[in-house]
């Protein structure tokens, strides 16, 4: 048995029309259209196992949307192979899409003018969901997301957070095996985001539902995913755990120390010392060159230390550096 999702050397190129300047250019383009090729996805490969929660990130235009659209069967790939849950998405569309759910944070699939429950009933018919399964899912999810109060309200009257919760349930009613989330918390307030994240974590833990997220909100990733796939310029640049990315990319670590008295610390090899205030100093060093244990022992034995604090560099900062094209 292979993995739930198998992607091998997936590529996709778009033809982008290139126009000359001004009206002459437009006219010329009308008769002799000129195109240039833009490779959106370049030979990307990865596997995802059942029950994984994977964060799929990259800057705008990196190719993550294109990859997700190929995974969900919306786009045909140019080359490479793609197999999800035993299906080739773009060839077996109708059978395949009933096994997946997709949430677009920016594009609701609910009927704007009608009560939420009407959209759910319509989805029940579209997906041919058996009555019992439908009732069980609806009851369970609406309770978990505390949606009882607004099931009978028209979608246009809902707050963004309520609408997003309704959209997530809409994508889950037919018991999909894999769910794709595209910016699932965009525009939602802090409390609302936390409700959604803990709901998804619980769903993953209980049902082993496989979830793939694309988002620009690193908090979403940190709080839900264990695995990160970073794509930039159409290529995969990182595939591994959240902790792994810290080890791999964040060479520089920092230790903040508060001393009992104002003092001067003697210079140490490979360590940069910054004064924060009279008692506090920050020690910057590379984990490859300095063992944090050694540094701490040395400080504790030689100086009167009141407090010690190791700060991890934020994932967000690391990601920004990767996007910036830093050499690995």
């Amino acid at each position, binding site marked *: 048995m292979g993995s739930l999702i198998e992607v091998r050397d997936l590529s996709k190129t778009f033809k982008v029309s290139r126009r000359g300047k001004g009206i002459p250019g437009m006219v010329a383009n009308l008769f002799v259209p000129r195109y240039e090729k833009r490779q959106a996805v370049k030979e990307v490969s990865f596997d995802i196992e059942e029950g994984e929660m994977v964060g799929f990130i990259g800057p705008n235009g990196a190719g993550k949307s294109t990859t997700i*659209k190929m995974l969900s069967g*919306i786009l045909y790939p140019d080359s490479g192979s793609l197999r999800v849950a035993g299906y080739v998405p773009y060839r077996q569309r109708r059978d395949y*899409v009933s096994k997946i759910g997709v949430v677009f944070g920016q594009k609701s699939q609910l*009927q704007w003018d009608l009560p939420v429950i009407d959209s759910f009933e319509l989805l029940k*018919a579209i997906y041919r969901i058996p009555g019992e399964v439908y009732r069980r899912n609806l009851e369970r999810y609406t309770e978990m997301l505390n949606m009882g109060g607004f099931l009978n309200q028209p979608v246009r009257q809902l707050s963004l957070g309520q609408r997003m919760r309704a959209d997530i349930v809409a994508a889950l009613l037919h018991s999909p095996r894999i769910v794709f989330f595209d910016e699932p918390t965009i525009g939602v307030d802090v409390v609302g985001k936390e409700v959604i994240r803990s709901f998804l974590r619980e769903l993953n833990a209980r049902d082993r539902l496989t979830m793939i997220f694309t988002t620009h909100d690193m908090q979403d990733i940190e709080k839900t995913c264990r695995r990160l796939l970073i794509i930039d310029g159409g290529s995969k640049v990182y595939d591994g755990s959240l902790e792994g990315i810290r080890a791999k990319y964040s060479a520089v670590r920092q230790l903040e120390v508060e001393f009992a008295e104002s003092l001067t610390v003697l210079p140490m090899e490979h360590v940069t010392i910054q004064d924060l205030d009279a008692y506090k100093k920050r020690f910057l060093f590379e984990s490859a060159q300095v063992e944090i244990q050694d540094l701490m022992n040395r400080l504790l034995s030689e100086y009167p230390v009141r407090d010690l604090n190791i700060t991890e560099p934020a994932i967000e900062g690391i990601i920004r550096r990767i996007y910036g094209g830093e050499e690995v």
Partner: protein
Amino acid sequence: MRDNTLELIGLYMRTTVRSWFQYRVDALLRSVAVFLREAAGVIAIYFTLLKFDNLNGWGLQEMMFLYSLLFLTYGILIIFFTGLRDFGAMVRTGKFDRYILRPRGLLFQMIFVNADWFAAVGHGGLGILLFVITAGRVGIRWTPGTIVYYVLAVAGGVLIQGAVFLFLATLNIFLLETGSLKELLYYDTRKFAGYPISIFHKAIQCFMIYVVPMAFVNYFPAQFLLRKPDMAQFPEIFLYIPFAVGVGVYLLAYLFWRFGLRFYKSSGN
């Protein structure tokens, strides 16, 4: 698994009716507005014709009968083809992605997922009204034979215009914006179809028979029932084939649609 396609169609219909008629007074007024807008065009022609007595042998009542077919077919058409009429916007905004993600046929969804009921009530209502006024006065003998012919002709007319909508929708996949082409190929052609096509230049006649076959929506069916002398300049076979033309062009448009879908590119986020 039990096939619930009919149940789904019913549910789609209920959903579109409820969406379009959310605000009852507004819905009523808008339907009336569409009705009046179209009726104004008919009234203008009515007064023009009062001056002329007839147009190539077509009297006032007969002209109105010709018109009724146009409105009636459009009223039915728009119940099923609103999704394709608005397909361009759906492609540009990426909303079409959602339909790809649902386990149903794409054309099936486009046909049933939306219906412009205001246009259906406005156009269809006017078509029925004109038919009721004129059907008994233009000398048609309504026998089982002519009734069957009439029903088939209406179905053919719906299919012909449906084919034009489907063709233009598919073109959207390649061109993204086809508004003016639709104006030219459909709405302008339909204005011409309000008159007996024998009054136009040969080039326009050919266009309406062989390119966008709107002549088979109302002129030839009306000729079959009315037998006006200006039919002499067209092959008689045209009287018998409106339904076949409808099925034929619709199939062609459907093949083009199947071909075009492969090139769907979606839109960026």
